[in-house]
């Protein structure tokens, strides 16, 4: 009799707990509090019990431990010293960097004109309100034209002493959101904002659901963004405050919880923003992955993203009262004699940055990182949003039976290379060889292994190839840009160009409206 009563009591207790748990969850869902990733159930999350311990500095902020992904151990990590004297003589703005812009923007300057930093250079004919401005002061020395008279580049020879355009007045305390938008459009800072989906400069009339800034880059040889904000703490916080005025939603900051060390205080103690901590291998630092876990983009929604450098430029509009594109750029990769950081301005000429820094091998220079950057040469310029020049040896050599017994160590996510499994932390000297030929999709499940998102990349790729719009949208096309699929493309056994296919799909969707 007593046992029966005990069992009944236990059962009752269980029911009460379960009901309470459900009500808590429902409440959390109604208020939207569960979106922050905090566990609002009274039971511990099953996964949490087995995952490694949360780093102590995370505190109560949402913490995401991403298990899928891969850190490619590549030689040529930059030393964490910054050469503070600004480098570079020539700088350029390249209209093709802006996706969806009309190929022939309306020029507001001519060759030979003197411009100040922040002066209007041209505007997009489709969206005349958006002005693209000079990153430095100096003389416009050339306007390069590409195919069909499109404008490929506007080059500016920088002054020794930088002069800045006097900015229009904006009353920060009283000004409305509309005034702020107009101010950003006029100062050119609007172009620093990127909108997801599609990775484009947003419409001035748009309201984003949320704004995301990732404060760390997890790509191989990526710059340490703690160095980018050193001495600029006030500007960064000011930039975040301004972003807060641009959205009704939340400004999210993605923080690095990968190491034992805490990221720079300006990140971890940032005010008026939602801090989200991310741990795990690349691509945990990609803003797209962070958005997916914190507040995913649904059809019809728009989210804005900015890099740390861009937040700084916006902040300096208010703290310094001028458009100052000064930024820390990483020279990374095994072909630099001493990989490190230099200070320069936006869109610097690559030759100016790498002068006398390179080894004598056959080198490919990249604006951006190894996985999603663009090949350049010394005559070319860093792209608008890039903060890194990467050097890598060209791999145009044959390798006898290389598919079976390669002559050197190759980077690989595959466990068929025993050395990569045993010495997984050893840095590898990589080259640009494709290590095989392009094939049809054969292996399945390998993209999912390196993409910590609830997305089926291979099926999405096939939907894009088949022009199946409904499926593309349903399978999460809007949540991705090139950099998010870059690691999948690296790992692809069939050597398929996933990033190019993805962009094709994004462009089709964008043009559909």
């Amino acid at each position, binding site marked *: 009799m007593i046992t029966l009563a005990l069992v009944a009591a236990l059962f009752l207790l269980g029911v009460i707990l379960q009901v309470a748990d459900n009500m808590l969850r429902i409440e959390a869902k109604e208020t939207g509090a569960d979106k922050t990733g905090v566990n609002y159930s009274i039971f511990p999350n099953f996964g949490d019990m087995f995952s490694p311990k949360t780093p102590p500095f995370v505190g109560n902020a949402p913490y995401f431990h991403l298990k899928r992904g891969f850190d490619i151990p*590549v030689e040529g990590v930059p030393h964490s010293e910054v050469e503070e004297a600004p480098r570079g003589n020539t700088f350029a703005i390249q209209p093709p960097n802006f996706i969806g812009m009309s190929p022939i923007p309306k020029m507001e300057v001519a060759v030979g004109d003197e411009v100040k930093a922040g002066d209007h250079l041209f505007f997009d004919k489709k969206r005349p309100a958006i002005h693209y401005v000079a990153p430095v002061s100096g003389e416009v020395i050339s306007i390069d034209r590409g195919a069909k008279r499109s404008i490929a580049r506007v080059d500016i020879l920088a002054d020794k002493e930088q002069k800045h355009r006097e900015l229009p007045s904006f009353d920060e305390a009283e000004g409305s959101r509309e005034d702020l938008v107009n101010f950003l459009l006029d100062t050119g800072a609007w172009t620093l904002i990127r909108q997801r989906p599609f990775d484009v400069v947003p419409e001035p009339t748009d309201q984003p659901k949320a704004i995301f800034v990732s404060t760390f880059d997890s790509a191989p040889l990526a710059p340490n963004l703690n160095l980018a904000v050193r001495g600029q703490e006030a500007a960064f916080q000011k930039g975040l405050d301004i972003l807060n005025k641009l959205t009704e939603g939340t400004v999210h900051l993605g923080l690095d919880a990968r190491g034992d060390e805490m990221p720079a205080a300006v990140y971890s103690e940032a005010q008026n923003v939602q801090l989200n901590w991310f741990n795990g291998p690349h691509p945990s630092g990609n803003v797209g992955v962070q958005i997916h876990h914190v507040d*995913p983009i*649904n*059809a019809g*929604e728009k989210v804005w993203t900015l890099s740390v450098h861009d937040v700084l430029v916006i902040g300096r509009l208010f703290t310094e009262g001028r458009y100052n594109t000064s930024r820390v750029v990483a020279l990374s990769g095994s072909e630099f004699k001493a990989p490190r950081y230099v200070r320069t301005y936006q869109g610097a000429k690559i030759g100016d940055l790498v002068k006398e820094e390179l080894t004598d091998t056959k080198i*490919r220079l990249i604006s951006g990182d*190894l*996985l*999603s950057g*663009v*090949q350049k040469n010394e005559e070319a310029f860093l792209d608008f949003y890039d903060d890194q020049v*990467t050097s*890598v040896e*060209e*791999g145009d*050599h*044959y390798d*006898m*039976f*290389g*598919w*079976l017994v*390669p002559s050197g160590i*190759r980077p*690989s*996510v*595959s*466990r*068929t*290379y025993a050395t990569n499994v045993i010495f997984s932390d050893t840095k590898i000297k990589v*080259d*640009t*060889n*494709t*290590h*095989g*030929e392009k*094939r*049809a*999709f*054969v*292996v*399945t*499940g390998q993209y*999912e292994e390196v993409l910590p998102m609830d*997305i*089926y990349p291979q*099926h999405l790729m096939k939907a894009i190839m088949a022009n199946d719009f409904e*499926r593309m949208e*349903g*399978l*999460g096309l809007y949540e991705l840009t090139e950099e998010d699929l*870059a690691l999948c*493309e*690296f790992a*692809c*056994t*069939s*050597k398929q160009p996933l*990033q190019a296919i993805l962009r094709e799909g994004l462009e089709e969707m964008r043009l559909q409206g």
Partner: protein
Amino acid sequence: MALIDFFKKIEPDKKKSPFLHTLYDGFFTFAYTPDTVTSGKGVHIRDGMDLKRTMVFVVLAMQFCYLFGTFNIGHQHFVALGQHTGLLEGFHLKLVHGLIKLLPIFVVTHVVGLGIEFWYAARKGHAIEEGFLVSGALIPLIMPPDLPLWILAISVAFAVIVGKEAFGGTGMNILNIALLCRVFVFFAYPTEISGDQVWVSAVADGVANYGWWHTTVFNGFFESIGWSTFQPGSPVVDAFTGATPLGLAAAGGWEAVTDVYTTSQMWWGTIPGSIGESSKPLILVGVFILLSTGIASWRIMVSMFIGGAVMAMLLNIWGANPFMEVPWYYQFYMGSFLFAMAFMATDPVTAASTNRGKWVYGFFIGFVGMIIRVLNPAYPEGWMLAILFMNVFAPLIDHYVLQANISKRLKRA
């Protein structure tokens, strides 16, 4: 780099002789990974893994099955004759007999299969893809040793043309090529691949019948060094039936099986059967290679085992005939379950392509295969048909997994 200069010099002209060029390209890229570099946009470095390496690891994983299979052809032959019945007795005869049986099968498979692949590659103007490396290695292992070579040639041609090239080549096929080849033989020439008489080689009429290689070449050689030789015309022993464990189990349950074969015989594989599927430990070595390198899907293997075990247990409970009463764990000792699980079900092209789908796909192969094996009197073994059946359903399974993903995304909005 002298050798590569030579290779470059003999490259045939692509326009004048496309077939030769395709052939050359196939062999050249086999000898050297090409010097192509990544394009200027997209990734600049690529993983060291390519399709050739993937495929060759599967082929490597089945090499132990080849070694043992070759030997076992000879071993079963001599056991039937009552000669050299100890496992290692007459080792040279067993090995030679195995090779004489296996090599023609291997060569015909590859000449026909690769020939068709090369021809289509040349016709379509693309590089030779590696798909047939694995199919071609699998086909000999799942055939009976005495299969007439012309039947083999027709079935390989059917499988490659209708099963693969008609769908667009490697990566596009719906059905597993190796199994399609076998199923073709199974339905077109059933007497060659079913029953009790086909699993032991060269004893068809109750006496050992040997060919020119046996009697002239090797007997002469063995005689000259004083080793034992092939004895043409030796009769099979009286007790010999040639039945496989599955045939026995279907007739009389587990007792009938253990009357003829011990469990350790079945485990180690010294029993009649298709060439490569009999030795369980050596297949498990292959499983270990495939899983530790991550090439085959552990999800499919695990779920297929679960599916088979669940169905076998259900049949145990039902227990309407002696075959159903075979203890469920002994079902895995008989037949080709492990081989099918390791090498056939895990083919990435024809399996479900989503991770969730793989669980369902594997489970139903195990489940359906066991039903066919035990409940269908016409088919002694079920995995070939079960895998082909689930191959057809794999896209449907994926469809539902993807729909779940899509509706989850819609619901979120």
